């Protein structure tokens, strides 16, 4: 059960960690890299609070060993903002009141950001399908959908 060294790029910064193979990626991100924006909700791959982007695709970091991410690119919620400017999805969540308690928000926004990259003109249905793996226990889905629509419009206007 020897530890292994892994190298990952997190939010553009190369990072390394000495990990036990059983270490889950979410624990590596929160405890080793000290990036606590990624949340632990259900810990059973249902809720999506732990969502991060792995090579651009949203995945649940509670159900991946950190060692599997060796050599890959990770984006966490801390990486959405660029040079002091909020990502359009973050701006949308502010403008449309897309969060209540905020616990699901980091995962929700990462899923939305990846989704809008592949689907610049989403329908409401396709947004709801895209976020169906991210649960909001405040049930604030109406404003979450509006927030993502706001971001889609903003991205389209900027393109």
């Amino acid at each position: 059960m020897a530890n292994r060294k892994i190298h990952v790029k997190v939010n553009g910064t190369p990072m390394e960690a000495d990990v036990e193979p059983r270490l889950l990626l979410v624990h590596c991100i929160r405890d080793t890299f000290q990036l606590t924006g990624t949340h632990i909700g259900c810990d059973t791959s249902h809720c999506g609070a732990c969502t991060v982007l792995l090579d651009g695709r949203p995945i649940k970091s509670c159900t991946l060993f950190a060692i599997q991410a060796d050599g890959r690119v990770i984006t966490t919620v801390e990486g959405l903002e660029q040079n002091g400017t909020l990502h359009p999805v973050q701006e949308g969540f502010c403008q449309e009141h897309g969060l209540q308690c905020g616990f699901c928000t980091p995962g929700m926004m990462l899923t939305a950001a990846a989704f809008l990259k592949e689907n610049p003109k989403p329908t409401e249905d396709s947004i709801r399908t895209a976020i169906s793996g991210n649960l909001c226990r405040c049930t604030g889905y109406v404003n979450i959908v509006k927030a993502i629509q706001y971001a889609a419009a903003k991205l389209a206007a900027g393109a």
Partner: protein
Amino acid sequence: MIPPGFEYYAPTSVNEATALLKQHGADAKILSGGMSLIPLMKLRLATPRYIIDINRIPDLDYIREANGFLKIGALTRESDLERSELVRSRYPILIDTTSTIADPLVRNMATVAGNLAHGDPANDHPATMLALEAQVVVVGPKGERRIPVSNFFTGILSTALSPDELLTEILIPIPPAGSGGAYIKMERKVGDFATAAVAAQLTIGAGGACERVGIGLTNAGPTPIKAKKAEDVLRGKKINDEVIRQAAQLASEESDPKSDLRGSAEYKRDLIRVLTARVIRRALERAAKGR
């Protein structure tokens, strides 16, 4: 929940992986998407001493038609099916199936092959692959062999894979003209296993008779079930309401569901009857378009 410790291997070739399997056999588990394995490890329902992570093996991630088959590599993710123009245009039954599995984030990791190799009768691809009469290619120390999916599921969470064999590819016969298939799942909410689900694949000949038929049932017994009696009543006939009614009744009788939180056995058997009739009709509609 932190999984129990294990030794980790990340082979970079199929030969290296099968050599590790030969060495460690039943103490080892293959890690592909990990969407079933890691949750089971957290719950201590699986405690492998060795994890063989096949994600570093190149050239196992593909979807292509060749030599009469749609070929799906072992590392093809569920979300790759949804992204594939080939699958979207020619294999809607696979889109029906994959889009009901777990949720979009899980599908970015989960593999189609893992959905079969796990051997869970609640998984969705087994019924669909039974309906499509697919085969799986497995590689072990003695070389490669093909196993028809109809012989693959041997018991609860058990398959025909030997402990030293790796599933490398799924082979789906390319359906002839006049074919159509569909999968309909009843689930309580996104991410749940099926209360019941049914897959149907039909080929309707020029004269209007059903030439080929496959019907598979999800979460309807200790293994995925091929509803052979229902298939027999459809094969060779022009499919009308009465034939569909008979097939649906037979599929229901071939099922062996257990009562649980998702419903009583009696309810599930009736659900299978209803879903079988619906899925045959949807497959017929698609077969009519595929001519």
